[in-house]
């Protein structure tokens, strides 16, 4: 299965800017389907970006985040060519990880 994580990390000397697009239904658990039944909650609970073995960004998500979430942030440091590791865990225990090279 293809990765659910698309990421681009660009270093500009002092800081690295990261953009990520993650494919996930992010069902809140409040929406009903066409038959009137609740679509069970299914969303990412924790999203982590790691650089050099340390977390540079951790998100605790819930029902309020929409489908296919997009995240953008910057962190101090990060060198061109180094690895950035991204992983998420959802409320059903599913996970995915990806590693991207900082450009």
């Amino acid at each position, binding site marked *: 299965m*293809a990765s659910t994580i*698309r990421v*681009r990390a660009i270093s500009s000397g002092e800081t690295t800017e990261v*953009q*990520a*697009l993650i*494919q996930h239904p992010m069902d809140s658990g409040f929406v009903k389907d066409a038959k009137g039944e609740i679509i069970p909650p299914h969303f990412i609970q924790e999203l982590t970006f790691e650089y050099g073995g340390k977390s540079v960004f951790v998100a605790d998500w819930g029902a309020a985040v*929409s*489908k*296919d979430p997009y995240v953008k942030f910057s962190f101090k440091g990060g060198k061109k060519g180094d690895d950035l590791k991204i992983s998420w865990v959802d409320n059903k225990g599913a996970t995915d990880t990806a590693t991207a090279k900082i450009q």
Partner: protein
Amino acid sequence: MNVRSAIHLALGLVALAALVAGVPPGLAADTPDPVADARAFQKFFTDKFPKVTLQDFVNGPYSMNEDMHRQWEEKEQFPPYEFALDMGKEMFSKPFTNGKSYADCFPNQGIGIRQNYPYFDEKEGKVVTLELALNRCREANGEPPFSYVKDEMAALTAYMAFTSRGKPFDIKIPNDPRALEAYQNGKRYFYTRRGQLNFSCATCHVQSPGERIRAEVLAPALGILNAMPIYRSEWSGMGTISRRFTTCNSQIRGVPLNPQDDEYRDLEYYLSYVSNGLPISGPGARP
């Protein structure tokens, strides 16, 4: 009759003659002139929004609002339609059960042709849209048709639009009275008020582009199909032209027609034609 009413009658006749004389020679008062229509259509919008270049009109509400434009530029770096686009590319390349593929149904293997749709099929005597052509291709090869309003059709048209990015709309109206009639039907549909809210397409997209309807900024009608299909945040997903036409109808409390009914095909024909020259920018993203 007395002198006064005779003068009134004479004045009336002179006025009437002046009106009729204003119609170009060789053209009856009600023969559509698509070339003139398109020119007037484009001029209307460029006059109304002098700071927007002609090509920018394909960005819909993003060309109407600076703050939204900035957000859209950022979003375009990592657009939400990427997943649908990838899925569309995969679907397009996968052969049917009988071994043939979409490439066999379309000119140039289906690559870089989106800007030629819809076209008027002189054999059938009707307008053929890209969505319709795709399903006909499927059915001709023993595959079940896709829903016109769901993800699969959106993914396919997303890929085909992507291969035509930058190419200007090149819709043709052949020298056939039926084609002219289809064009005119589309134009009439566009301007006709419908639904309990009594809106026409023009009410929002000609009279009020750049203004808000509830929380949304309205797109101008010029270039409005160039970015299709779109990932719409409101839908949390992709939508085809068929999806947009049908949902627009129900939003103004009119019962939608069936996707790809004659009226919708003709409407797409008209809207695409008057945007001739503007580049395909699909697939797109919208609020």
